[in-house]
């Protein structure tokens, strides 16, 4: 499988870094962003990920807003919501806004890898 590029957006930097490291061990390449605006900046620079892992609750703007903007500007990028927040309508709302999936933290790394691959294959 070719190298899948990821953007991990999470204000918990420790989590993002560890997740990135583990995913890299599984053949993914990744960048991290610590908040919503940061994520949009990264996307605006020359980095173009295949899949974005996006937290919902962040200090600046919410994951939903970021999701909407990504889907507007970069419709080919798939977004997987990865959050510790458990609103009942989270999954439904995310999917309505174009997210590929909605996963609750903590998540099994292999399950996550599987979802990322599925998201990547959707556009392949």
């Amino acid at each position: 499988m070719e190298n899948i590029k990821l953007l991990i957006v999470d204000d918990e930097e420790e989590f993002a870094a560890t997740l990135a490291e583990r995913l890299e061990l599984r053949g993914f390449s990744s960048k991290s962003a610590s908040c919503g605006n940061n994520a949009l900046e990264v996307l605006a620079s020359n980095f173009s990920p295949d899949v974005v892992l996006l937290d919902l609750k962040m200090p600046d703007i919410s994951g939903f807003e970021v999701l909407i903007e990504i889907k507007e500007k970069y419709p080919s990028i798939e977004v997987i919501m990865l959050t510790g927040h458990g609103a009942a309508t989270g999954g439904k709302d995310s999917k309505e806004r174009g997210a590929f999936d909605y996963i609750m933290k903590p998540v099994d790394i292999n399950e996550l890898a599987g979802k990322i691959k599925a998201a990547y294959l959707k556009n392949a």
Partner: protein
Amino acid sequence: MTTTFKKKLTHFLSIAFFLMDKSRSYRRFRLMFSGVMFVIIFAPLVIVTGLSSFEYRELLLKEERSQLYWNAEGAQKTIEAFMAKLTSVVRFVSKDRGCDDLLDQYVVSKLLVNLKEEYPGFVDLGVIDHNGIQQVYAGPFRLEGYDYSDQDWFSKVLAREIYISEVYMGFREIPHFVIAVSFKIPDKEEYWILRASIDYEKLQKYISTINTKASQDIFLVNHDGVLQTRSNMFGEVLEKYNMPSKPEKGKITINVSKLDSVSYLKAYAYIKNTPWIMAIVKEQYIYGDEWSSFQFRRRLIFIGCSLLALVVIYQLVNFVTDRLRESNEKRDLLMVEAEHSNKLASVGRLAAGVAHEINNPLAIIDQKAGLMTDLFGLTEDFKHKEKLVKSIDGIHNAVERCKVITHRLLGFARRMDVVYERIDINALLQEVLGFLEQEALFNHIYFELVFDENLPMIFSDRGQLQQVFLNIINNGIDAIGNDGEIVLTTSSKDNATIDVSICDNGPGMNSEIIKRIFDPFFSTKEAGKGTGLGLSITYGLVKKLGGHISVDSEVGQGTTFTVSLPVNFTQD
């Protein structure tokens, strides 16, 4: 409505509501309300019935008296006219015939024959001179020369010109009366007398013709109370009649007396120029058949109205009390539900916050431990590697347990939001059991799951369904207490409905309890332990989700709740 009445009514209602709020004394309210309604309806009914009866009676009495008065007046006039006619006949004879004719036996006998032809009541005729000696006599007896000078009537007729006697036997031995007129002998200053005896039957017949249907009896009586004609009620002629008091002269006197417990109206009137008093007797209408049948009808109507009123009061009181109870219970239920859901919402928000806060560090722990595992996998064996790997597995397991807890908390929080989605009921029941497992195990209660593997997914609200099953299973656990079994069965009759039955082997319930089990505030748990709302809320939730819930129970055999839910629930 007066202010006082309004105040009283408000006071009454406030007492009523207070009573209901505080002690739920609907029975007392029902009694009070019935009492008030009873008074409101019956007081006017009794007053109106009584008054109308009294007024009607008074009117009848008045009417009856005046009716009798007119009757008596009519009869009095008729009798007076009859007597005047008889008198004028005798007087005519005395005036028409000359004195010489009247002294001629033949002429007098001929006169009697003629009179008898015209007026069959005439018995004899006699001519009496101024000394009281009967000079001429025509009739069935031999009375010529009879001396009447010492008799009372002789002087009366000389003084008054006309005299009508009472009815008496005399030596004729038949009741009769006498009409005597005096006439002047020409050329002499002497007054002689023409005297005619008339059979009382003549009078009797005449009186009898007057007797109308309007009265029971009509008769003549003299001033001393001796009957002058036959009375239907008081005896034969010349018998004594007990007259209460003499009537007023020139007036018709009416009084009331009782005979054999029947009340009679009696009217008395003097007959002019005679020694007689006419009496008319009439049974009082008030004591007659018609009046009693009127009274009977009146009572029947009153009883009918009363029964109707009682039925109306009963129904109305029941209706109002039931509505009041229902609305009170609904209000209380709504308040408690609101409080309950407020509490749940607060707890839910708290739980969601906690879960979220914990999930993030938990995710870090998970990832860090995962990274360690990953790295160990890339590293050659070293001392304690195996032990470290096991420790990390321990961390993983702990994280997994925490994850179950936080996800469950989030699931609980989610129940606050109503979301319709496709739900696998088998999985949902498993989740619910997850909440109760610990408590059940502690009490040695075991769950047996008989799940239909092909159960269709249903479209419903997860949170509310969780609450429904949580309540029912919780009740089962409470009912069993210790050592028991709860069997959960899912099935689908058709593709439109699914059934979930929850069967416990607890003590069961009798039919009285089953009837009330879904009533709000009804609880069989000891005071303070249950709110009596669990099943009521459950019932409401199931209804809201388009399903229905039924219960089947037998004392000593356990209880089965069956919840039926539509596969495709559409909200109205």
